[in-house]
């Protein structure tokens, strides 16, 4: 019988092990994960926005009732602001059932915002920075426009959906730290309006402003003042800018819109009422002495620009174009 040969020839190395470099492998996985995350976030955001806009305003109001105790109590200034807001909504009516409630926050922050349930908050700092009532009315009109266009609801819906989606994806990876990192990235989208929403609110705000005053110089005055503030103190950028980016595009968009609708961009500027100026001494004096205005400085409706050509020349220096 021939002897059976027993031997162990050496085996080649790479059969049970993959030759791909681990970092390359990792990079491919991360790229695939990012792609899926981005797609999921975009889709979720779109769906959430569509759905949130359908939520009835009453639901928003009941949600807002939960934080209503954190809002400041009404006072003279907030009543004045509410009056101004009511005049704006009288000139440019809101959809039925939608109500605007304006609150005044006595803090030096230069900001104003709109949130769920039609609540608009204006800070003292912003009021003190406004040159005249028209600019303030533009701010209010802008925030009212956010409410009119249901931006607080859609923005919150989008933030929730994105955060939820990212949590689900991160839970699947089975790694605690990665899960936390992804989860917090979802919350960062937060309750901030997109640029598109800001521009839409600008447009709708201009419509209201023009309906009330007959001209849109208030908007110009507002952005002028904001630009001045920005250049005056580079280190302390007003909070307004973090949520309302100011740039050329926005100003041009407004001017373009005014031209297309043939709204006069010059007109009478209304100073703040005496009573309010007393309460907020840091406010600018606003318009110069204009005798033709009534005692409380309120505007009486649409005026013809040509009639008041003289008014423009006697404006306060900080209104220089």
């Amino acid at each position, binding site marked *: 019988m*021939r002897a*059976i*040969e*027993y*031997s*162990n*020839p*050496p*085996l*080649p190395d790479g*059969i*049970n092990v993959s030759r791909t470099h681990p970092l390359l492998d990792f990079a491919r996985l991360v790229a695939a994960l990012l792609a899926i995350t981005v797609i999921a976030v975009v889709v979720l955001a779109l769906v959430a926005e569509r759905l949130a806009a359908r939520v009835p305003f009453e639901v928003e109001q009941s949600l807002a009732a939960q934080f209503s105790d954190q809002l400041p109590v009404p006072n003279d200034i907030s009543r004045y602001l509410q009056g101004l807001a009511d005049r704006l909504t009288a000139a440019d009516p809101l959809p039925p059932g939608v109500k605007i409630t304006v609150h005044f926050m006595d803090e030096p922050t230069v900001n104003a915002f709109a949130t769920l349930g039609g609540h608009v908050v204006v800070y003292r700092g912003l009021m003190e920075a406004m040159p005249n009532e028209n600019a303030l009315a533009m701010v209010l009109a802008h925030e009212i426009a956010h409410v009119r266009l249901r931006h607080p609801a859609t923005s919150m819906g989008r933030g929730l959906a994105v955060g939820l989606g990212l949590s689900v994806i991160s839970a*699947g990876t*089975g790694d605690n730290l990665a899960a936390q990192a992804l989860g917090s990235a979802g919350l960062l989208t937060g309750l901030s309006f997109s640029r598109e929403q800001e521009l839409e609110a600008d447009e709708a705000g201009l419509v209201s402003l023009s309906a009330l005053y007959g001209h849109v110089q208030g908007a110009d005055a507002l952005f002028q003042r904001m630009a001045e503030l920005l250049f005056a103190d580079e280190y302390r950028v007003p909070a307004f800018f973090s949520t309302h980016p100011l740039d050329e595009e926005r100003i041009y968009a407004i001017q373009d819109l005014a031209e297309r609708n043939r709204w006069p961009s010059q007109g009478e500027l209304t100073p703040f009422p005496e009573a309010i100026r007393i309460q907020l001494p840091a406010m600018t004096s606003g318009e110069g002495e204009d005798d033709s205005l009534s005692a409380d400085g309120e505007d009486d409706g649409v005026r013809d620009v040509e009639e008041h050509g003289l008014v423009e020349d006697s404006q306060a220096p900080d209104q220089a174009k």
Partner: protein
Amino acid sequence: MMVSNLEIVPGRRVVKHLGLVQGSTVRAKNVGKDLLASLKNIVGGELKSYTELLHEARKEATERMMEQAQAIGANAILNVRFSTSSITQGAAELLAYGTAVVLE
């Protein structure tokens, strides 16, 4: 390449024993299949997606084992055994090993 679980091949003689050859693969399960499987946990029954997964893994492990056998000049693998074990959460290793031989 003959792959067999038997020790001997009836009717044929082994000329050379060439030693141990192994093929292994580590596979991760899919999170999508995972969700379906957890649903299946409620009703019971065969988890077809996992069955298919392990089937694929077994095929690949066997192929790698045959590749090793071919590299050392064998024409059959006898006494093949499988071993499955779970490595870390969500991944399983499937090992196939046997003796590579040259049949006359």
